[in-house]
């Protein structure tokens, strides 16, 4: 179907003119959203943009590098609370967000060290332990988490005559767009190929000259950097931080967002993020059913469509392109 004639074409982000049109329409819709939708839609879309960043980071680690991590809420918490402390200390907004990402990234590299010796289930449990440990340390030491009542974070001041919600939306949207472009560039560069090589067979990758130490740690670092940014933006958006927001369930949510969206797919990460935000919003009357729906979806996806929503989307497109042949 898609005949690639040169390396230059392979690297192109937008392969066909029509795809450019669709993406343009989507972006225009996102930009005009404050005038098209109501407050609730803006709220949900802001959350989706925030989560999409973290899920992309998680996908770089799980989907592309093949390292199972179940402690992602720990990195979100580290990012969020670093951002809270930095912005309280009067650091400018962008620097504080960057600082939160770097802080989470450093912890990611630290957690990545076990990944050099541990594989599969062992790594999953080590990262899971890390996530729980961060949560418990934050609840135990009020100096870090800002006291029993949680930590109040200064929200984004309104800019250019827009309301506070709309300016936050634009800020988060631009960040999300930037990180999506960054992910596409990472996965189609030498770095991304090295990650994929490690996923497919680490011993073979090492024999081909991919330094496992270097790239596994880098993958952990990049993925936690993304997640830390997610935490910072979440803090900025909600304006309040509490260790209770970063429990084991939060780690699971990020994990299943990757699975549902589709492993090793940037678009899939965005779809997965949208799924885990929209479902709880849609059935807000019966909160207890949210994990049930997540669980059933994960099972259906895993049995019938291991490539997730992104894989299903690819198949639907192929079907219509080849119609009436199959």
């Amino acid at each position, binding site marked *: 179907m898609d005949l690639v004639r040169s390396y230059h074409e392979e690297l192109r982000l937008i392969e066909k003119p029509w795809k450019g049109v669709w993406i343009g329409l989507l972006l225009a819709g996102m930009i005009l959203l404050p005038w098209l939708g109501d407050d609730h839609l803006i709220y949900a879309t802001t959350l989706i943009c925030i989560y999409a960043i973290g899920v992309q980071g998680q996908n770089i680690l799980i989907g592309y590098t093949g390292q199972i991590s179940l402690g992602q809420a720990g990195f979100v918490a580290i990012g969020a609370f670093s951002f809270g402390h930095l912005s309280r200390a009067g650091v400018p907004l962008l620097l504080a967000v960057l600082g939160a990402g770097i802080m989470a990234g450093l912890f990611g590299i630290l957690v990545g060290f076990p990944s050099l010796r541990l594989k599969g289930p062992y790594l999953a449990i080590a990262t899971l332990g890390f996530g729980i440990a961060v949560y418990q340390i934050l609840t135990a030491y009020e100096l870090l988490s800002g006291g029993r009542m949680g930590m109040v974070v200064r929200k984004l001041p309104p800019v250019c005559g827009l309301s506070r919600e709309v300016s936050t939306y634009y800020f988060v949207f631009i960040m999300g767009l930037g990180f999506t472009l960054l992910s596409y560039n990472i996965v189609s560069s030498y770095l991304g190929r090295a990650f994929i090589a490690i996923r497919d067979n680490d011993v073979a990758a090492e024999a081909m000259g991919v330094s496992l130490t270097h790239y596994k740690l880098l993958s952990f670092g990049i993925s936690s950097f993304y997640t830390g940014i997610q935490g910072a933006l979440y803090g900025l958006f909600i304006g309040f931080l509490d260790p209770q927001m970063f429990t084991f369930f939060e780690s699971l949510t990020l*994990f299943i967002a990757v699975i549902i969206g589709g492993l090793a797919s940037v678009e899939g990460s965005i779809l997965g993020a949208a799924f885990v935000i929209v479902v709880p919003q849609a059935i807000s009357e019966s909160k207890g059913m949210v994990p049930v729906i997540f669980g059933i979806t994960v099972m259906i996806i895993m*049995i019938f469509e291991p490539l997730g929503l992104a894989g299903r989307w690819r198949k639907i497109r192929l079907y219509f392109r080849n119609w009436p042949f199959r």
Partner: protein
Amino acid sequence: MTAFFHYTLAGLSNGSLYVLVALGVVLIYRSTRILNFAHGDMATLGTFFAFTLLSFNLPFYAAVALSLLFGSVLAMIFYFLILVPAQRREATLLGQITLTVGLGMIFQGAATSIWGSEPQVIGFPLSDTKTWTVGPLVLDELSAGALGAGILGSFLFYLLVHKTSLGLAMRAISENLPAAQTLGIPTRKVLALSWGLAASLGVLAGLFLAPALFLDPFFMLEPFLKGFAGAILGGLNSLPGAILGGLVIGLAESLTAGYVSLELKNTMAFLLIIVVLLIKPEGLLGKVFKERV
């Protein structure tokens, strides 16, 4: 010195329940190479089932037996309805682990919607206020019962695995699945029984943990993680390792709570496994696994 003995005793008593959880995790890992993330939630559901039966004034031992059965039936249903079709479609290892994560979420949500998230008190015949004094030591009934259940459960499990033909079949399957199939062992049935057995070990641990922790849909999360940690610590493919690992985790958390700080007791258990894994990645009693390209 008395304090030290106390902490040790409390650690061993908790540790023996972690051993039960760890044995279940190891049993499933050894036979199917799957890390069962739904183990804790299966136990939660089983314990809630016992709670419901007790509220209908059923005798305690009947309720225990029925809830163990309930847990194992749930696990077997999962094995036959979800796992076998997924394996037929050649699901990857990550996929199978994800299936158990999904199952855990379903169970958790079901427990929340059926029984609510308010903590409940289970009517348990052993109390933690009645105590015996043996020399300088004070032992309460509940921890003694937990210790007894842990030892008895592990012992029966040992007998099953090493002295019966079912145990022999289980060991054969964990050693080499295709060879076991060739020899005519009904592997599906044996594997389903392993899942059921593992779940009922979890429910047994849950029943003894519920009186001390209060029963809510998330009460098994921490004991499950500790049991898990114990299984990893001892080596995921070794049953004696699970017993050793569970006891070590119990002791470590109890001693940390006593001598270092109460807040750090859970964190300590995880730091311990990360350190042990860094030094000996296959766990204390696990076998080294070599990989080829």
